[in-house]
């Protein structure tokens, strides 16, 4: 049942079910939201929500506009709450913070015991050291700047506001702090099992997103039996929050049917949409106020498909004719691969990610401009490889137990920089690891590849720091060096902890396209 409404079950442990909630559906981040979705899916009536005026006003001071401009609020009265419900409410808040709220930067929610404070409320920005209060889970008053230093949440989220001279603060008419968004609430308004009436504030950088979050949190409490009241937010303009209006659109039946490839009647479509919580009248669809993800008719179409069940769609195939066409480079590399296998080489596939030490240092090669990672997580991966040779030497050094001789090859990406442009080519590299591996032997393979592929190349002696002097040659095609082969320098062998001679060939095959 859960997967069919878009909630893949991650695991089941005893009485607990763990589900994955996709980031477009924050309304499913609470037990109440999931129950709401399941209820309509199983035939329950779509729910409508409304709120009365609480008479409470929330004033926005201009000082907070440059820091964290938006705030909305709601009141839920007569809630019956216990420890378990408080925990589930916290979980809902944290989940919204993490994903939809971009780690509190975009959205930050505070839930308060309304009876501990005296409205109206004021949202403003103050000097960090000018105001102090007791933050949640602490015993002493701390200034805002001390909270960033000492409170775990201050340490975790302080980065969001540190750059500002003043920090946001929500206080009541007696200057008592409700919260220091987006960091921490005051101990004063802590919600516990005795709390009857709840005040919810949501601050952030996106006016729409905070309204969505407010609806999701307050409706979760309403579904638990609370009564919802609006708060009047007064800034440059006045408005009541939360906004529970339901958008109404004409049923885009034709579009939906064409895209899905189905012939649903309007009645069928409305029935399917009702399963997903949409109400309707006169062929108009009312979108549930908590479905904050609906942007366009395609979102309705997806809900129709989900309600119908993806696996109930008769599969079909696109009804036009087309001719398969492989890309030219694959065609070429396929031929080279066949050839190498025919020459008794074993294919390996190595990562393109590598590091400077492996790629240049161990190879005694001078560093050339290359594609570098800005944010590497491990030292091993700091760049993209401009050649394949080091990868193959690494393979051999990690295959010590393998019987000799070893003959391996790879056809892979070589990625380099030419000026500001990234150059991505396909390279062939092959290696002989054998007490008898010589220049002549690898040359015979270079020769075989060029001959079999019909490539006009010239081979002439060259100097290359990775090879023994006098035992290296370059492959030249149209006056450009496209490859190199020879016997690897003993120092390089030492660097890779190899104990036998290595003869190696590397050739840019893209240049023969």
């Amino acid at each position, binding site marked *: 049942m859960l997967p069919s409404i878009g909630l893949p079950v991650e695991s089941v442990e005893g009485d607990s079910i763990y589900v994955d909630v996709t980031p477009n559906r924050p309304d499913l981040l609470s037990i109440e939201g999931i129950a709401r979705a399941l209820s309509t899916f199983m035939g329950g009536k779509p729910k409508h929500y409304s709120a009365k005026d609480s008479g409470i006003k929330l004033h926005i001071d201009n000082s907070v506009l440059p820091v964290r401009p938006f705030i909305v609020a709601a009141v839920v009265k007569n809630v019956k709450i216990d420890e378990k419900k408080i925990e589930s409410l916290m979980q809902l808040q944290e989940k919204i913070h993490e994903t939809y709220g971009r780690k509190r930067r975009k959205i930050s929610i505070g839930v308060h015991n309304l009876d501990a404070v005296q409205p109206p409320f004021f949202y403003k920005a103050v000097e960090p050291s000018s105001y102090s209060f007791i933050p949640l889970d602490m015993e002493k008053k701390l200034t805002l700047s001390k909270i960033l230093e000492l409170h775990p949440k201050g340490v975790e989220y302080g980065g969001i506001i540190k750059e500002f001279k003043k920090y946001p603060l929500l206080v009541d008419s007696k200057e008592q702090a409700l919260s220091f968004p987006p960091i921490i609430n005051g101990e004063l308004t802590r919600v516990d099992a005795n709390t009857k009436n709840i005040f919810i504030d949501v601050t952030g950088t996106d006016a729409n997103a905070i309204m969505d979050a407010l609806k999701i949190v307050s409706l979760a409490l309403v579904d638990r039996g609370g009564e919802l009241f609006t708060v009047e937010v007064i800034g440059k303009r006045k408005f009541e929050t939360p906004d529970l209006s339901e958008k109404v659109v004409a049923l885009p039946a034709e579009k939906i049917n064409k*895209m899905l490839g189905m012939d649903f009647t309007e009645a069928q479509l409305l029935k399917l949409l009702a399963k997903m919580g949409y109400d309707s009248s006169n062929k108009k669809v009312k979108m549930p106020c908590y479905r904050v993800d609906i942007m366009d008719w395609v979102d309705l179409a997806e809900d129709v498909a989900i309600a119908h069940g993806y696996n109930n769609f008769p599969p079909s195939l696109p009804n*036009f004719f087309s001719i398969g066409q492989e890309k030219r480079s694959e065609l070429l590399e396929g031929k080279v691969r066949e050839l190498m*296998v025919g020459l008794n080489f074993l294919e390996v596939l190595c990562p393109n990610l590598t590091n400077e030490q492996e790629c240049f240092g161990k190879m005694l090669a001078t560093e050339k401009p290359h594609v570098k990672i800005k944010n590497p997580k491990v030292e091993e991966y700091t760049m993209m490889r401009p050649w394949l040779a080091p990868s193959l030497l690494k393979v051999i050094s990690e295959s010590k137990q393998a019987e000799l001789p070893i003959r391996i090859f790879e056809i892979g990406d070589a990625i380099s920089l030419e000026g500001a442009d990234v150059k991505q080519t396909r390279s062939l590299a092959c290696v002989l690891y054998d007490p008898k591996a010589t220049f002549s032997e690898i040359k015979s393979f270079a020769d075989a590849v060029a001959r079999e592929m019909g490539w006009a190349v010239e081979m002439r002696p060259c100097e290359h720091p990775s090879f023994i002097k006098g035992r290296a040659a370059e492959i030249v095609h149209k006056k450009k060096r496209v490859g190199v082969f020879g016997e690897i320098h003993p120092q390089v062998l030492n660097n890779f902890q190899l104990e036998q001679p290595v003869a190696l060939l590397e050739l840019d095959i893209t240049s023969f396209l």
Partner: protein
Amino acid sequence: MLHQYEKLVLHSLKAGSKTLDELADSTGLNKDSASRACYWLKDKGAVEIHETVTQGFKLGEEGKKFLESGFPEFNLIKKLHAGKAFSELSDEEKRIGLPWAKRKEWLEIEGNIFKLSKLGEKILREGQNEVLMLKKISEAKSLGKEDIDAVKALLGRGDVLRTTESKQLSLSITKKGEGLAGKEAADIHGEIHLHGDVGARKLVNTLTKEDITTGRWKEKEYREYDDSPVERSRPGKKHPLRKAISRIRKIFLELGFEEMEDRLVESSFWNFDALFQPQDHPARDLMDTFYLSSPEKISLPKDEVVDRVKKAHEEKWKYKWSREVAEQAVLRTHDTAISPQYMLKVRKGEKKAPAKFFAVGRVYRNEATDFKHLSEFYQVGGIIVYEDATFRDLLGLLKEFYRKLGFEKIRFIPNYFPYTEPSVQVEVYYEDRKQWLELGGAGVFRPEVCLPTWGKYPVLAWGLGLERPVMLMMGVKDIRQFYRNDVSWLREARV
């Protein structure tokens, strides 16, 4: 066929068990090669290897000196015998030689005068056997019974003697090995004569050109082969993943798809923005994406597509879109990054719609690797650019693809991607494990993706994993196995 080294080793061991040194001597191989050949033969069950530790001795610093210029006590009695005065002795002779000469009773003391004892005179005449022993050790000759006392005496004395431990492999041939050696010998000599029951009949091992052309084969009988192990032939082979890629490419080509030319380094614009991922989307986080410091930026196409994408973001996601963010260079996080570029080609007439495109290529995620995750792996992506394409076509195509790949049971589960609607998670049923496995994502590109690039709607799209189905087919438990490239594993690996 055995390796050359193996033949030499078997031949030598057939004559008797040997230490590795002896084996190296008798075969002419160096110790490395000989030991390697022994381990290969051990795998074949032809040779047994025992490791023994032998104690030996070598000269310490003092020992070397004493060997060269004599023991101080010996030099001492020599000088005294020659009538030198006590004051003429060296410091060493006095300090070390005197106590030792006394302890060994080479000297007798009468009052204040030292005198050679009978034993001392004998030593002076016959030489000191400790010196002979040191000489033997320095020349690595084996020690005799007569040396035992000298060794015992000297082991405790300063840095004269040091003990050494050497590991020695002792190698012997098994029954199976003898069989192998016999066969090899037969192969070498071509013909063997058997007596006894068979009488004088010739049993022949090799059929020669001469036999065939002259008709001599009629007079011969050929030796039967037994089931003794043979050397493994090592063919060249494609990598298991490459075989899977070939198969997948073939399926798409058969279904009439054109293969896309793709790039690993992309601008964020193509990787994210063109796919309607808002610029503050968590997937764009540094934690998940490899951003580049060189090149840091990739310039955006000089095309109105940039403005159209910008407009879609600003209207629908309601934020201020930044060009700089879109220019950031990344290693593509999915191969869907190439799809909107081909949709733009269709708009420009470089490609004709309706069209089917696919690509198999590497993608990158900046995450720690473990048995299920790699930072670099393959994806199989594709799109169908067709105004009359339907969601049913998408499901049908995926079903067909997996059926051709050998997975008969497949199911679709709702999922979410910012760029598709409806979005599908594809799962196949793996009989051997009686389990559903998630293999990839698919969906119909949103109008916000289709309209800025192609200008029309809809486009069907998918991005499927490659390694996981291959792991299933090969029974590989650890995804890293594919890129570890252990040559021994690759030689045995079969898809």
